[in-house]
């Protein structure tokens, strides 16, 4: 096993899948010669050539649309949005075409496209390079939304996404790219879409989160363990459709639930997670369901103190976890 960073795991997954199946190809802005602005497709152009690593014009609707068309004809496109913030011109293609293709054609046509996009803030990216936009897509049946939290999950889930017969949105936290490193198996490991993962077993409080926040929650949990607070941490991994059984099990385990997202609080997928818990776990609950999320302001500020205030971090999580444990 080799230690890979989050972005190296992404690159490795892409390379392995392209090698395995010649129908897999990559398209996006600067993904070719440049190797991607974050270097996610680094080396693929050299390895697989310009026909399978395609630089596109600055037109996200076209990136998605071309990919959807190719997918319908049996290809396995992996489209890259340079930043998740830029996906909005492609929303019509994704929601009205990709998500509904199988349903509207009565299974005659499918759309096995994977759309990758780096999301998230805390990197001085300001408003157009910091957004969490998963909630926009998280009530569109036909779509799957995957947001891995670790390099190993990123690799295994991206491979599953590429092989999935239906459209998958694959959001990668750009701050995780070089911050998170771990040992990733060399094997062809597939991690199933739609399954949440317990990242830490605990008995005092339950934290349910996804993406980079999993990392902060784990750090906070390690600090709190020294105080005798034992946190159970569930990583949703797939945020649409949600793994209801895992959510119910985790929430019931301690009855004290903290939900965390970097997205703006109101309308985030946390509301849906909380609703699932209320529907199924009332008589196991020991405290009001708590949420940590970004404030309801239009964008991530550029000014560092304001950005820090906006972002979820280890300290905020630790404080909320302690407070919930003491409740």
């Amino acid at each position: 096993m080799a230690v890979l960073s989050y972005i190296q795991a992404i690159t490795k997954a892409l390379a392995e899948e392209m090698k395995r199946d010649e129908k897999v190809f990559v398209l996006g802005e600067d993904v070719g010669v440049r190797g991607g602005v974050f270097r996610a497709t680094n080396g693929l152009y050299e390895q697989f050539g310009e026909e399978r690593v395609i630089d596109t014009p600055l037109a996200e609707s076209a990136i998605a649309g071309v990919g959807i068309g190719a997918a319908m004809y049996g290809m396995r496109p992996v489209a890259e949005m340079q930043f998740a913030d830029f996906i909005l011109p492609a929303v019509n293609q994704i929601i009205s075409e990709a998500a509904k293709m199988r349903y509207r054609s009565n299974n005659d046509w499918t759309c096995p496209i994977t759309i990758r996009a780096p999301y998230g803030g805390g990197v001085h990216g300001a408003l157009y390079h910091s957004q969490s936009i998963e909630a926009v897509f998280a009530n569109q049946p036909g779509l799957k939304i995957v947001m891995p939290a670790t390099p190993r999950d990123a690799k295994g889930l991206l491979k599953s996404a590429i092989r999935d017969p239906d459209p998958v949105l694959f959001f990668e936290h750009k701050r995780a790219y070089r911050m998170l490193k771990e040992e990733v198996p060399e094997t062809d490991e597939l991690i199933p879409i739609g399954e949440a993962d317990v990242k830490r077993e605990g008995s005092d409080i339950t934290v349910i989160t996804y993406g980079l926040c999993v990392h902060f929650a784990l750090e906070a949990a390690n600090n709190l363990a020294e105080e005798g607070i034992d946190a159970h941490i569930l990583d949703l991994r797939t945020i649409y459709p949600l793994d209801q059984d895992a959510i119910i099990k985790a929430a019931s385990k301690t009855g004290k639930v903290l939900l965390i997202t970097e997205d703006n609080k109101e309308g985030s997928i946390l509301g849906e997670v909380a609703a699932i818990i209320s529907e199924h776990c009332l008589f196991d609950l020991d405290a009001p369901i708590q949420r940590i999320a970004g404030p309801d302001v239009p964008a991530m500020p550029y000014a560092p103190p304001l950005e820090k205030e906006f972002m979820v971090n280890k300290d905020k999580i630790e404080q909320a976890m302690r407070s919930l444990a003491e409740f």
Partner: protein
Amino acid sequence: MTVEKIVMPQLGESVIEGTISTWLVEIGDKVEKYQPIAEVMTDKVNTEIPAYHTGEITAFHAEEGETVAVGEAIYSIEVDGKGTKEQQNVEANSKQEDQKETIDSQSMKTRYSPAVMRLAQEHQINLSEVNGSGRGGRITRKDIEKLISEESQKPKDELLTTPASENKSTNTEQKKKAFTQSLPGDREIPVTGIRKAVATNMVRATTEIPHAWMMIEVDVTNLVNYRNAEKDHFKNNEGYNLSYFAFFLNAVAKALKKFPQLNSSWAGNKIIQHKEINLSIAVGNEQELFVPVLRNVDEKSIKGIAKEVHILANKARNGNLTQEDMSGGTFTVNNTGTFGSVQSMGVINYPQAAILQVESIVKRPVIINDMFAARDMVNLCLSLDHRILDGVICGKFMSHVKEILENISGDTTPIY
């Protein structure tokens, strides 16, 4: 003059560390603000780090070629004026505020979460006896779970004898559990509706009513003679016994008419004095004791009373008494003399004011006009609700009953 530690800056949107490729200054150098200090290499960019202050470089914290995480110190500089101390103060203040928030009152002691409520009900836990470890004294789910696991580790015998305030709880599940531990060969007798009603009333009466007790002795020689003279004739005519009990009921009804205070019920904030005189009587069969009611006894002849007692006793023996037969009583007369008892303390039939026990008629030597005489004597015992009644009125009532009974004859008390 203060020394500032300068940290590795954020050098790109996904960059979390940088490698110092070259220091462009040396320790001891005076530098101007914005002057390049070092060349830094990341996997995204190569860039120069400018000085944030004018001052003198005092130390390097990283060597050339070393990789440093964003936010870690790379060099120190001695600068004029204020540094970032202010920032530290702000952070310290905010920490103090956080601590203030966590201080709480004891207000959460009786706030129960759904989980705590459910577990307490399922495991028969009296929450008022549990100490909470949560904020504000709140009982947490963990507190209850701990209690349950401790409880389940206790040996079973101990569980059975634990009082655990069972009688106050409304859930009967645990009680059933405790009572089902019957021994081999034990017979289980189902609690019928009537038995249940009696049991409920008795428990309520003994826990709620402050009982007081008195007894008088009555010479019923006349009654015995009168009844002995009539009983065979009566039995032949009517087909059932002319019991002493009918005479006692008759006497009690008459006395209640005169002292209606005893013909009352307790109703919380008021006492209800009844107009009707409906006497509850205790009738037993092999297993059970029933308390059916004779209505408007003051309006009935001795024969009428005897007949009704006969009918109710038959119903009781056959288990045919209805709730209707058992309700509406205003005073109870209990024929304890049947068993040969000469003295007993009755439990008041809730919510009535009193109960009279008619004991066994016994022939005894009694002194009349300084001479011994063999007389038929009976004890009458009265239990009274001391909230409703006092000794004086009850004494007068008992004297009146005595007077009636001692003067019974064909003239004063016709059978028909």
